[in-house]
Structure formats: C-alpha cells, structure tokens
C-alpha cells in the first residue's frame, strides 16, 4: 500500500508499470483496476489555462493513507497505489492516479471506485484555476456517478 504526493509532473502509466514491476504479486494477482484524472482545459463554461493545487501537509497524506487502509478492510486486495499532484499543474498533466490489485475484478473495480470517490469528496485538496482573465477557486467537485450513462441505457 503506497501513497505519494508529488510536487512535479509524473507519467501515470510509467508509474503504474514501475510500481507493478517492483511490487508484483505474480501468480496471485488476477485483476488490476486503475483511474487517472487529468487537468482539463475547461470548467463551467470557461477556458482554463492552468491550475494550482493546494493541500494540507500532514493531513492530506494521513487521509490518503486512511482511504487506502479502508479499501483494504472492505475488499480483498493485494495492493493499492494512490498518487496525487500538488502545486502548479499544466494542461493535460495527470492530477491523480489510483490503482487496486486483487485476485478478482470485482474487488479491484469496486475498491478503485471507492478510493477515487472518497478522495474527491474528503481528501484535503483545493484547486485554484487560472482563466484567460484572472483566477478562481473551484467551489465543488462534479458528481461521481454519470447522468449521461443512465440516460443512454434508458433510451
């Protein structure tokens, strides 16, 4: 179980591959589920040109550790990795990587989703967006369950 808070850009897929190579549970692992969140160029109808991510040194790390530990209690997991950026972030850069390894896909999928949703709603991070004119603090995160997906399956 590993939690990392990074002040500079990282390649999420390289990090995932390196981590799996170093902590591999070859043979026992039947499933890996991962999520990567990136910096988008728009929010609430405005172009966003950059972002600053603030955190609470000490508490943020502790909270991410608690999320990983809670996932390990609720699901049968082999390993968990959470990586989150802080500081100045450029367009297209990865902000967050969450991954879960398990024997079976249900544990991996559900634990990955749980960790990501808890992180979005509870982990102490705050985004300040740079716009073409000025900057603003993001006031709230978008809901975690897709309305679009529901509508498509209903039609």
């Amino acid at each position: 179980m590993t939690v990392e808070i990074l002040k500079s850009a990282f390649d999420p897929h390289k990090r995932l591959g390196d981590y799996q190579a170093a902590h591999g549970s070859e043979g026992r692992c039947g499933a890996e589920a991962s999520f990567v969140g990136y910096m988008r160029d728009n929010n609430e109808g405005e172009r966003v040109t950059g972002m600053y991510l603030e955190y609470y040194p000490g508490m943020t790390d502790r909270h991410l550790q608690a999320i990983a530990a809670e996932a390990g209690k609720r699901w049968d997991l082999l390993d968990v990795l959470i990586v989150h950026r802080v500081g100045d972030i450029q367009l297209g850069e990865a902000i967050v990587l969450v991954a879960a390894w398990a024997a079976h896909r249900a544990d991996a999928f559900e634990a990955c989703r749980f960790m990501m949703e808890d992180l979005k709603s509870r982990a102490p991070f705050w985004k300040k967006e740079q716009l073409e004119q000025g900057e603003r603090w993001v006031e709230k995160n978008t809901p975690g369950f897709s309305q679009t997906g529901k509508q498509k399956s209903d039609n």
Partner: protein
Amino acid sequence: MSVHVKFFASLRDELGRGEAQIEYVSGMTVVDIWQQVAGNEPMGHVLAAVNMEYARPETGINDGDEVAFFPPVTGG
C-alpha cells in the same frame, strides 16, 4: 496555553491570513474557535479538522491542539 489555527484555500483569502494563535480556554470547542477568528459569520459549509482529523463544530479542543478550517475539498 494556546491553540494553533490554520486556514486553507479560499477561506484563507477571505480571512486575509493563513494562521492564528488563540488563547486556550478549558472546555472550548471547534465552533468557539471559529467565532473568535470569523466573528459572527456562521460556519456553513466550512470544514474543520483537529490535529489533522476531521472534526465537528461541537468537537472539544485541548491545549496545544492544531485546528484547521477549510472550504469543501476539490481534489482528484
């Protein structure tokens, strides 16, 4: 006898400071600290942590504690 208070993100901008020292008084709670730093402004959606764990307005404070106030989180 004091409590160390921290503010983050938009709340720090609104209050115009990132930290404060409050004199500790026996029996004080999170909301008592909030009223000392923010006046009559209600806590509303403001979140609080005591010693880096989420706390409620009625959570009790001990001498030397670190109390943090911040807006809803927007990470990920």
